[in-house]
């Protein structure tokens, strides 16, 4: 068991190091960064902000990880977030109970995932294009629901999901923690994880081995849709309104970035949900760090690009072999040979 934990730790080590470097760098610029205090019965501080603000991307990254593991990609998650946020707001303002609202919204998210999944698995359309359809049309659907305005609501229960707290942690953090752990258990305690990886590496060989490829593919996109729905609810609850125009805008790129920073290959196969979650947190740490640093906003993108390139270079297989002594290279492979095979 301990060796298992060690393996796990080793897998996450590069991400942990990157996070550590960023946190250290930001606390240099902004000394109050690490302060944590209890306020109104919940933890309060920049670190908590990172976990809290990172919630949507973390959730999207969880679903995206599984989709990417199947060698797919889901560009529609931002739009699905908007649809689901709008659905939730519309449902709650038209008088549905919280439970009904959540059910309807999650249902809509699952439906969106189903659509993507069917396009990819049954109609055999390339994932980028298949999900691009919903990415373009989805935001229109969301605006159709809100008629382009911000649909505000004040239902305290729904608002609680966005800004309440539980056990000292903001609700969004609690939600993604639970959901992330559940998903990780679901894929690792069952055979799902391995079967999904098999599909991602070699779909044809998996099918010939009796893996239910289409169903699993659809399931991956459904999971992604579900994640986007939860993220959409959180985003709407956070601002007490559904902003169909901007909710989740370009977040799909952040989610993909998070997965890659987490070390899952875009070519499918091996994946780690924990690493993707860490990746999302890293990205949020960058964003929050930029906000706290007080640089003029014109520099935001350059700083972000520079940090991302830095992290990716740290992680690149070439760099890792060159500096194998820095990162304990358990199971690390020789990259050039790998490519040549």
């Amino acid at each position, binding site marked *: 068991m301990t060796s298992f934990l060690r393996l796990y730790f080793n897998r996450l080590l590069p991400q942990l190091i990157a996070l550590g470097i960023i946190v250290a760098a930001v606390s240099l610029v902004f000394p109050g960064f690490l302060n944590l205090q209890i306020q109104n019965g919940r933890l309060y501080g920049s670190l908590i902000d990172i976990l809290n603000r990172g919630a949507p991307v973390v959730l999207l990254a969880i679903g995206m990880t599984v989709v990417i593991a199947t060698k797919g990609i889901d560009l529609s998650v931002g739009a699905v977030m908007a649809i689901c946020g709008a659905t939730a707001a519309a449902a709650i303002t038209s008088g549905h109970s919280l439970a009904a609202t959540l059910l309807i919204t999650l249902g809509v998210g699952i439906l969106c995932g189903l659509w993507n999944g069917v396009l990819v698995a049954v*109609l*055999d*359309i*390339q994932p*980028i*294009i298949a999900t*691009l*359809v*919903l*990415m*373009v*049309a*989805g*935001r*229109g*659907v*969301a*605006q*159709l629901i809100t*008629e*382009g305005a911000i649909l505000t609501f004040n239902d305290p229960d729904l608002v609680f999901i966005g800004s309440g707290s539980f056990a000292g942690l903001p609700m969004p953090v609690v939600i993604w923690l639970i959901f992330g752990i559940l998903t990780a258990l679901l894929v690792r305690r069952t055979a799902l994880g391995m079967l999904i990886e098999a599909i991602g590496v070699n779909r044809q060989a998996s099918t010939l081995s009796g893996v239910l490829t289409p169903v699993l593919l659809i399931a991956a996109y459904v999971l992604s849709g579900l994640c986007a729905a939860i993220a959409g609810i959180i985003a709407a609850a956070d601002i007490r309104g559904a902003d169909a125009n901007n909710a989740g805008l370009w977040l799909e*790129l952040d989610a*993909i*970035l998070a997965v*890659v920073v987490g070390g899952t*290959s*875009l*070519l499918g196969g091996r994946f780690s949900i924990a690493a993707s979650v860490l990746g999302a947190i890293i990205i949020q740490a960058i964003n929050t760090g930029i906000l706290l640093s007080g640089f003029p906003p*014109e*520099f*935001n*993108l*350059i*700083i*972000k*690009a*520079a940090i*991302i*390139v830095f992290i*990716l*270079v740290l992680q*690149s*297989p*070439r*760099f890792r072999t060159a500096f194998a002594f820095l990162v304990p290279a358990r199971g690390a492979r020789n*990259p050039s040979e790998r*490519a*040549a*095979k």
Partner: protein
Amino acid sequence: MKPKYLPLTATLVIFLLGYALCVAQYPNMLSTRVIGNLLTDNAFLGIAAVGMTFVIISGGIDLSIGSVIAFTGVFLAVVLEHTSIHPLIAFAMVLAIATLFGAAMGAIIHYLEMPPFIVTLAGMFLARGMAFVLSIDSIPIKHPFYATLKALYFKLPGGGRITLIGGLMLLVFAIGILIAHRTRFGTNVYALGGGTATARLMGVPVAATTIRIYALSGLLAGLSGIVFSLYTSAGYSLAAVGVELDAITAVVIGGTLLTGGSGFVAGTLVGILIQGLIQTYITFDGSLSSWWTKILIGLLLFAFILLQKGIIFVSRQRQQRA
């Protein structure tokens, strides 16, 4: 017909069909004006999409082109505003920068073995960031040379025009087709798309080819930026957001596989025209709200993809029977 020409033919058939339907509803759409506009308005997108086609055929992707277009525009505007450098020299400078930028991304992709999606995503942030740093204002370009260039067009009967930039796009497509099918480099691009490892074993210079592909994409994005700056006579750091997705869509509608290894530059041109057609149709209709516009674009995209699949499927079946 060879099976590999199927997607291309299917796309062309769909375009003609769609155009005929549009004309049936709005006879005005047959005017040379609309045809001229289709070329002029999509010139920058088309030029960038040629680069994207090469990248995608090689099995990669380039998300940075929209930002490079914006950067190019801002760079030109700033240079022409604040110095007395002649636009042609500024063009050369910016093309050199864009090419180097692309080459650098290609080098990172190859030597650090990082996925193109992510490298070019970082490139996308970086190029737009650079544009912001140069200037956040939109800067008009008032240089007389621009006016000269814009005055160059070929008038069609019926009021339509083939403008310089529209013509340039066609030229770039022609050159792109030549490069893809008539040079060793072009074959190497296809070879990379067929499998990097195999290509390497067959003696394809993988490093040089990868770098050149992204350099070419950078160069064409730069050229597209110049065209865009001619088109709008301005440089603006928020311009051309999301152009990469439009370009990818055009490439894919044009029958190129995102997995690499197969596709046609000519198909991309049809893809661009199909997208332009969808937009023109929606404007001619003019009754759609913002949201229905988005939904309809999505659905039409979906319909085109389905139709293409359908045509290919049916003719495969027929070929097998035969």
